[in-house]
């Protein structure tokens, strides 16, 4: 190992360069701060992406390789954990936004006060957020306009106050969106164009998004979709103040004698260990990996992990389970058009309604069945082989779509992320061990929503409808939240409302970790809006006020 010079201290170290790390980097560097970005994965350029279903969906081209980056899973503390690729997110510059199609709905006002609305839900740690929709609204607008989102304000009847229309009108209608809209209309349900991380018109010097079939779970070779890689990383780099270092895997955050964060110790691509000092440390590794890094960062001052005197780091972990009702139609749907996720949505089942028999609700939207491309498309109950399997492919590949949901997974104290005591990753560090038991409320919600999604398919004229119910949280959706809750009380939360650790004042977490509840909507827009809010706060106050003397 070559001896490398210790780099100069900087204002801020941001660990992770995905959706939220790139947002924070953009906001802070544009406010004049010097930021080092440490990203464990590679910095892939758009030229390295392509229309290759096999490589991207099936061969871990973008997904983490489970041999290198395993996780373990168990249903409760008395079970033995087994290796499981639970809730993976691409680990690279741009993170999950590299391979997503980017459904970017806003949360509603009730999401921030669900505990007050529904009361106690037995077995859960349901709480209100320490911030409101109004606190976040300006930042929703900032992200929608800076990032480039296509949508139509005011069509979603359940949406909260909006200070500004979307910057781009909705994308062209797909056949599956049209069917969904038709089904909703017949039943008297409101629907709206799913707000998406794509451009329906030239915007900010960027061209209209190319509508390939290889989109969801594929990187974008044209760079025309809106992603952290294509928008916020370049924005931050343009300031000249974002020193982004890929293939740099942070093993530990050290603390000084006063218990403040001192440095991030990382291993670079050559295998050398480097120590980077900074005034402020921001974690944006995703809720699982940020919790893991805090737990890995043990010291005399924090023997159970950084900022974890409360034993709350890693707890209340929530994950959206993705499920769907699937319909088969007489006329062609071509669900691969646009990649399967140029969608329409409804919040008809989003707001809490006690008559339904469960707390909360969720966003539903139409999509292809799974990844609706030749290898990975399927129908529920399709045999794995033989003449019948072939016949199903031939008859229904072009004639099917799904109405999907992400379950609003209830937070529970025992559902948590810890360090595994046996399994290590390819770098020799203990992997994240997930303990997760599904709550009855999730099961009830899943059943009710899927039944109602099936009715929409019926109303849209489906010949046959399949219902795929949730029976546990398998981590089949990359959304992860709650492991470093924000709240006003240090006894029941890890972070304050500025996502600053109660126990360490120069430590912030800006991914889904701070979310006290999972909500029923795709979370990334809100994560980015929250990261913007926190970064603006740091830019406005923290650097001047709180610098070590």
């Amino acid at each position, binding site marked *: 190992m070559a001896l490398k010079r210790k780099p100069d201290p900087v204002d801020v170290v941001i660990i992770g360069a995905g959706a939220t790390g790139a947002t924070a980097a953009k906001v802070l560097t544009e406010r004049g701060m010097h930021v080092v970005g440490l990203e464990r994965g590679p910095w892939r350029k758009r030229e390295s992406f392509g229309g290759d279903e096999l490589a991207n*969906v099936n061969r871990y081209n973008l*997904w983490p390789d489970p041999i290198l980056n395993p996780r373990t899973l168990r249903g409760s503390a008395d079970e033995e954990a087994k290796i499981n690729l639970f809730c993976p997110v691409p680990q690279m510059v741009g993170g999950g936004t590299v391979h997503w199609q980017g459904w970017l709905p806003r949360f509603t006002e009730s999401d921030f006060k669900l505990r007050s609305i529904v009361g106690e839900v037995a077995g859960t740690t349901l709480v209100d957020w320490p911030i409101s929709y109004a606190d976040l609204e300006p930042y929703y607008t900032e992200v929608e306009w800076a990032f480039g989102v296509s949508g139509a304000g005011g069509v979603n009847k359940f949406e909260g106050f909006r200070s500004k229309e979307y910057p781009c009108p909705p994308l062209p209608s797909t056949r599956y969106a049209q069917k969904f809209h038709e089904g909703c209309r017949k039943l008297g349900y409101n629907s*709206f164009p799913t707000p998406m991380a794509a451009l329906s018109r030239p915007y900010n010097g960027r061209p209209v998004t190319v509508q390939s079939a290889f989109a969801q779970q594929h990187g974008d070779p044209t760079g025309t979709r809106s992603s952290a890689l294509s928008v916020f990383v370049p924005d931050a780099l343009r300031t000249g103040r974002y020193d982004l270092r890929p293939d740099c895997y942070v093993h530990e955050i050290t603390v000084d004698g006063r218990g403040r964060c001192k440095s991030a110790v990382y291993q670079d691509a050559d295998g050398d260990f480097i120590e980077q000092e900074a005034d402020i440390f921001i974690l944006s590794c995703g809720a699982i990996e940020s919790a893991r890094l805090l737990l890995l960062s043990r010291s005399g001052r924090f023997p159970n992990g950084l900022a974890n005197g409360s034993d709350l780091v890693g707890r209340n972990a929530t994950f959206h389970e993705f499920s769907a009702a699937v319909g088969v139609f007489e006329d062609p749907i071509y669900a691969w058009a646009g990649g399967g996720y140029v969608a329409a949505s409804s919040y008809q089942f989003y707001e809490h309604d006690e008559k339904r028999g469960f707390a909360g609700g969720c966003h539903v939207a139409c999509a292809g069945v799974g990844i609706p491309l030749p290898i990975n498309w399927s129908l*529920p109950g399709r045999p794995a*082989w033989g003449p019948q399997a072939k016949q199903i492919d031939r008859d229904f590949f072009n004639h099917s779509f799904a109405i999907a949901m992400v379950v609003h997974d209830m937070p529970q104290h025992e559902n948590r992320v810890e360090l595994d005591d046996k399994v290590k990753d390819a770098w020799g560090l203990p992997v994240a061990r997930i303990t997760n038991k599904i709550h009855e409320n999730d099961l009830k919600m899943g059943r009710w929503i899927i039944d109602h999604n099936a009715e929409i398919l019926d109303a849209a004229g489906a010949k046959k409808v399949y219902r795929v119910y949730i029976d546990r949280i398998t981590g089949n959706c990359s959304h992860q939240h709650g492991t470093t809750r924000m709240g006003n009380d240090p006894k029941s939360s890890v972070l304050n409302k500025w996502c600053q650790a109660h126990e360490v004042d120069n430590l912030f977490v800006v991914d889904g970790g701070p979310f006290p509840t999972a909500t029923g909507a795709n979370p990334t827009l809100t994560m980015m809006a929250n990261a913007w809010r926190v970064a603006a706060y740091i830019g406005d106050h923290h650097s001047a006020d709180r610098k070590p003397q």
Partner: protein
Amino acid sequence: MTDPQAGAGAAGTFFDAHQRATIEAAMARIIPTDDQPGAREAGTIEFLDRYLSGLDFIYAKPDGSGFEKLEGKRAEAWKQRIEIISAKYVEGTKELDRRSQSQFSAEFVRLTTEQQDRLLAEMERPALQVEGAMETAKAVAGLAAVEPALQQTNAEIDLDFFPLLALHTRQGFYADPIYGGNRDRVGWKLIGFEGPESLAETHAGRFTTLPFFAEQQIDWEEEKNRGTEA
């Protein structure tokens, strides 16, 4: 090849002649030929033989100009994965012949298609019952027992021989032709997928699905002004 588990195939291949004939026959039952091409015509055996041959055919270059050279930890992980999967094929081929000999006193390749189907169905059953990965697979997707992908991929190395065979047959039938299967795009033609002419088309941004969008746009303004049930 120095691996004693490996077949005796030529460079860029893995199977010896008998293994290749056996797996090809089994694949022809996974996606049978009817009035339209099946696994045999698509060349799925070619696809699999290349895949198991080493690290030279894991990822096509996105512009279709060849294959990526894997390095570092990524290469190590793939080497490990291919070794695990190859061993399952070597053992699985033997198992097919063992069962075939004991029930029909002939090698698998010599059986009638009905006999082959019976043996494959037997091979499938235990996999469906005990395989943890398959259980997860079904729970994740509630869909095809082979490869769930409602939102994420599963761990290939956890699969038994039969689900692997079904998975790889499907991949070889439907993957981009650059991987050696889906010859003349017969898989795509069968199901009506109007995919790109080549990887280069997608890479250059010339491949568009807009002709397969709706003919009429949804009137969202009208939706805005409409009352709802709630």
